């Protein structure tokens, strides 16, 4: 059977990502999120990539660097989001060279948004942009399917996110310490992985602060308790 090509949103608000995929396309089923905290931002993601029910990749890295301390979480079509991230990475590098100063998270968000908006009928990309810069500190921007731009204290995305709106709303606190923020992200993603068939595998995180980018990795066989690397 073909996947639907109507592009319309299902009433449950969950199954739109699937419906918009092209035939045979690799889907980042996905649970992604990014949060602000006292010293910057943290990005987090699961690692499952599916084609239908088949797990095409069980250790995917959905956290993508577009500049030193500006990263994005990708959901939707793997091909589309990789292409968009590559374009933005190039643009930001160019910006840094031409203007002699590093781009801000806002610069990145603006470029991401323009691409997603101008090509909305060809893309299935749900992105979260998170970054730290000297001027604005840590910031989180969400760019959902239609290409709108939303500034948020924290953002969640992907099919798994629908299962954790309650968890996040209940447990979110502004200006957390790093350790608490890491635990918040981990707790939320554990729930998403637990309930969403399209999310699974390891939990990856990137912590962005004045000190730079720091990667975290947590594995299911140690119950996501031990930090590897």
């Amino acid at each position, binding site marked *: 059977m073909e996947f639907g090509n109507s592009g319309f949103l299902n009433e449950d608000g969950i199954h739109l990502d699937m419906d918009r995929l092209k035939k045979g396309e690799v889907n980042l089923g996905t649970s992604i999120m990014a949060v*602000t*905290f*006292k*010293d*910057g*931002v943290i990005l987090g993601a699961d690692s499952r990539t599916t084609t239908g029910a088949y797990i095409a990749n069980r250790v995917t890295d959905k956290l993508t660097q577009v500049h030193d301390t500006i990263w994005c979480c990708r959901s939707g079509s793997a091909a589309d989001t990789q292409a968009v991230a590559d374009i933005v990475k190039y643009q930001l590098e160019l910006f840094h060279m031409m*203007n002699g100063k590093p781009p801000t998270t*806002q*610069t990145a*968000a*603006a*470029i991401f*948004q*323009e691409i997603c908006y101008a090509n909305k009928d060809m893309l299935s990309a749900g992105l979260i942009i998170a970054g*730290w810069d*000297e*001027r*604005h*500190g*840590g*910031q*989180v*921007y*969400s760019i959902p399917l239609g290409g*709108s*731009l*939303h*500034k*948020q*204290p924290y953002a969640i995305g992907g099919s798994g996110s629908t299962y954790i709106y309650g968890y996040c709303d209940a447990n979110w606190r*502004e*200006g957390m310490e790093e350790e608490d923020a890491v635990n918040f992200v981990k707790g939320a993603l554990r729930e998403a992985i637990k309930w969403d068939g399209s999310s699974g595998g390891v939990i990856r995180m990137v912590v962005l*602060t*004045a000190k730079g980018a720091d990667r975290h990795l947590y594995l299911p066989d140690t119950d996501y308790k031990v930090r590897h690397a």
Partner: protein
Amino acid sequence: MTSIGTGYDLANSIFSPDGRNFQVEYAVKAVENGGTSIGIRCKEGVVLAVEKIITSKLLKPNANKRIATVDRHLGIVYSGMIPDGRHFVDRARDEARAWRDTFKTPIATADLASRMGGYMQAYTLYQSVRPFGITAIIGGFDPSTDLPVDGEVGRGPSCGAGGKVPGKTFGGPGLYMIEPSGLYWGYYGAATGKGRQAAKAELEKLDLAGPGGESLTLEQAVKEAARIIYVAHDDNKDKDFELEMTWISGPDGPTKGLHQEVPRALREEAERLAKKALESDDEDEDGKMEE
């Protein structure tokens, strides 16, 4: 070496053997004949002023503005060939628009100066064009507060963004002057046009680079700007002129970060003080003569 008759001044794209571009030097002459323009950069903002020579009694007073706004927070004043200046402003507005389209945020003063410097320089390279007959002064106030991405909705955490570098400030006033060669520098005070020598001498007395610039308020800068234009006009007394002045303050100041014309009451007060200062100068000189 003179340029006359050598042929090296006939085209833009040819250097003279001693390394000069005569077309650019002639363009500078056009600037030196124009009404004086100045810019003052102080802690609270930037003031731009121009001596607008009245070429005909049939011109409407206060019309035909010479200082132009670019985006909302930048101003450009120029001396020299006015149509060249108008085109320069048009281009600056296009650059500001292009920046907004791409980055969804207003262009910084330094970035506009850089782009316009590049544009001006390109007109010194080709056989088919002549250089700009103007020197332009660009003033602006880059926002010191956080700005949204144009069109964004939503907010960050109410406690503010985490991880900001404490004590570090951003934005502030900017003043740049671009010459026909495309050369541009950032200045504390800039002057160009016919009365530039006198104006520069006066600007230097303000000590804008040192404690003078720290203590000078924006209103004082407006008054100084008016006085300097009047002083600079002194050598050109046979012609009538109008004083046009604009200013740009920070978000907390009188213009709220926008480039605006100086309010009429303040401008007239500044002009009154300028005239008074000139008269007392004259009296001093007269006094000396009598000695």
